[in-house]
């Protein structure tokens, strides 16, 4: 009975994720985070709190940084989504990624995909981000390991490298 119930309420939803069009039957109120992780196997977005506080579930939805734990999948219908798995192919990530690796921006790594997406969103909008911009820009992403300072260094370093590249 349970299964019948849930299939009745499912609907077809389609969006583009990391450049590929995906169409699936899901409950429209299912969280985008769960659809990405469970249906599509994109487990780079993590659940740290499930209530919009930690940013570890961050993805870019139509170019905007969002917490995917707060987005019903219905809202992502026909959108363009970028997750950490998709960002890996883009040149500027390599720069951020390298800087994170060199500066110690990732420790346990659980906040890292969200942090990288937030940082890349920030640098896209403020290529010459100041330290204040960086602190502000990443304030929606919690990290319990680093105390943030090496994350700031990594983002500043990436911004510098991009400016001179």
């Amino acid at each position, binding site marked *: 009975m349970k299964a019948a119930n849930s299939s009745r309420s499912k609907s077809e939803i389609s969006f583009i994720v990391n450049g590929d069009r995906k169409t699936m039957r899901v409950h429209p109120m299912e969280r985008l985070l769960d659809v990405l992780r469970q249906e599509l196997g994109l487990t780079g977005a993590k659940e*740290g709190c*499930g209530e919009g*506080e930690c940013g570890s579930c961050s993805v870019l939805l139509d170019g905007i940084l969002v917490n995917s734990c707060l987005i019903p999948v219905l809202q992502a219908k026909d959108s363009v989504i970028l997750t950490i798995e998709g960002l*890996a192919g883009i040149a500027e990530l390599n720069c951020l990624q390298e800087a994170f*690796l060199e*500066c*110690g921006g990732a420790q346990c*790594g*659980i906040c890292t995909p969200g942090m990288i997406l937030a940082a890349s969103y920030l640098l896209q909008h403020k290529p010459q981000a100041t330290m204040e911009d960086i602190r502000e820009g990443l304030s929606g992403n919690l990290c319990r390991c680093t105390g943030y300072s*090496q994350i700031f260094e990594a983002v500043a370093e990436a911004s510098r490298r991009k400016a001179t590249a």
Partner: protein
Amino acid sequence: MTTGRIVGASVPRKEGRDKLTGKAQYVDDMQLPGMLYGATVRSRIPRGKIKKITFGPGIAWDEFTVVSAKDIPGKNCIALIVDDQSCLADGIVNHQEEPILLLAHADRHALPKAVDSIAIEYDPLPAIFTIEESESQSQIIWGTDNTFKTYLVEKGDVDGIWERADHIVEGEYTTGAQEQLYIENNGMIAAFDPQHGVTVWGSLQCPFYIHKALMSLCNLPADKVRVVQMETGGAFGGKEEYPSIIAGHAALLAIKSGCPVKIIYDRMEDMAATTKRHPSRTRHRTAVTKDGKILGGEIEFTIDGGAYTTLSPVVVSRGAIHAGGPYYRPNVRIRARAMATNAPPHGAFRGFGAPQSLFAVERHMNRIAQTVGLTPVEIRQRNFLKPGQTTTTEQAIRENIDLEKLLDRALQLSDYHSMKKRFAGENATGPAKKGIGIAAFLHGAGFTGSGERNLGSVVEVEACADGSVRVLVSSTEFGQGTKTVLCQIVAETLRIGYEDVTIAQADTDDVPNSGPTVASRTVMVVGKLVQSAALGIKQTLTAAGVIRPAYSAQEFRAACRAYVAAHGALRSSARFEAPSDVFWDDEKYRGEAYAAFAWAVYIAAVTVDMTTYSVSVDDFLALQEVGKVLHPVLARGQIAGGVAQAIGYTLYEKVVWQNGRMQNSQMTNYIMPTSVDLPPMRVFFEEMGNIHGAFGAKGIGELPMDGPAPAILNAVEDALQVSFDSIPLLPEDIYEKLASEAVVETEFR
């Protein structure tokens, strides 16, 4: 001390690329075919007898696997130190959130409703929630006297000092609970089949703790229990003992259902049910001469252990040993106790008792300074431990540590004196009050006393068929850099490339027991073992005549390949052996408590906003001596991360209790520092070397948790000229104290 090519260089983190691209596999990223989801039904009262359990209507119960205490094949306990904690409550509960039943279902959305529909009726029993209630024994909730463990440390003749004292300074200091708040919640997957037994994959620190707990719970022999660590998203001690419970729960559900079962806690469950840092109370009574020399005194250190023993005896021991701080006390008596309350058991958290007792002693040093009429700098200078002197456990300082020099350097780096002067001037008129505070402290690396000897850790290093070398340890990576540093040590030891060394996943079927990943022991103790196991590989290759003494990395690879091709395998192991000159008396708690201490001076500058009473840390300087720094970037990351966590402990993170349950178990109401809340952190190292660790390294991970709280509260005292002796220190606490002092002042006038 040698600086090698690889040790001392900031090589890339071994698992860094996977973490940066989202490829790293954490437990919730893993799926098994036919997997069910598990959930836990927990007590909603702090203490009582379970009268009746009713499975509510409207739930298709036949679709669920239900496990209760009577389904446990082995012993219903979580084997650790004392077998007093059940895996599932059987008739009686002793704290809120105590596990009672387990449910599993293929659809995880079906679980919350099912859990909520189970009604449990209790005969409530009176519960106690504070150290004082526990001490008064108005209710006996554990053993005969509510006491998990007591220690007595005695040195010299304390009773003889009081009459020689010019001043007797007393103080009481308290600290609150703190949530570890790793960003990855706890989680486990278990699978069972009669042939292979139980396998669990999870987020964890100590694979062999879980291995031991599962053997006894499931009544299985060692070779039928396998524990595999997945990438672990932060731990800080919070995944030291509690994962044994979750692994046990997942295993019981897997055994009963015949399917793999995944249990992932959500944030609320994780915060409310799992361990936190022990709340504490420390009392100091110190005899001092008029020129500020400590003659000695009494220290009473007490922690709230919660409802079951878990690790509290070890936590209180470390706290007791650190209670004297980095000062020379010719006469001292330390009484330490871990008390039972009806809170969920408190547990391991970075620092492990030391942050609590060091907070007290470093606040108390300021109080002594005030009483005697010295500055915070002078009181410390006059009492610092010196080489040749002994600690409170009569451990002689054999290292060539110069704490006065360390303090001097910290004062210079922070520009302490001119800041202090400037603040005093500005505070007279300004709307905000600024202050600067110092904390000097130490942290013992490795297990206490005979701990390492009893553990007898084993590591292995193997040469692989492709010519690379692989490290096999149960020491786990959860952000600190275990994998990276152990590989660096092997590469340096064998004079081969860092990329030629890999490290095995911590899987109890593959790796030997190198002990738990706790107590800042990995680099110092396990690193040293890994180094000698690596040398064993070289010796074998040399003896077999396949390498010459001055080999190149390439030749080494070729030699490994040749040897493995000819002999099938090449493994070398090393087991911990206690140095013969180390003495420890477990009865009297006397002797060499730790193989090495790390030393530090931290300085915090703060502003107190006199409108909102909020404290912000404007500048933080952390100077430490941790022996050889093997990886500067990782080491700096450990310090900055620890300081941030400790700033949270001091100024933001308050666990709000109601009837023994955490009320603010969400990230929205339990506030940890964000990127805009933290000061610039200036991290410096002094390197003096240590004979015990690999390449002269000591432990580092816990040290930064110890100093920030007292440094910040000392700075607040400097800013307001009012003392605060309790953390967390929230704006309302400051407001209240200032308001009450203002009242007292007016009354006196």
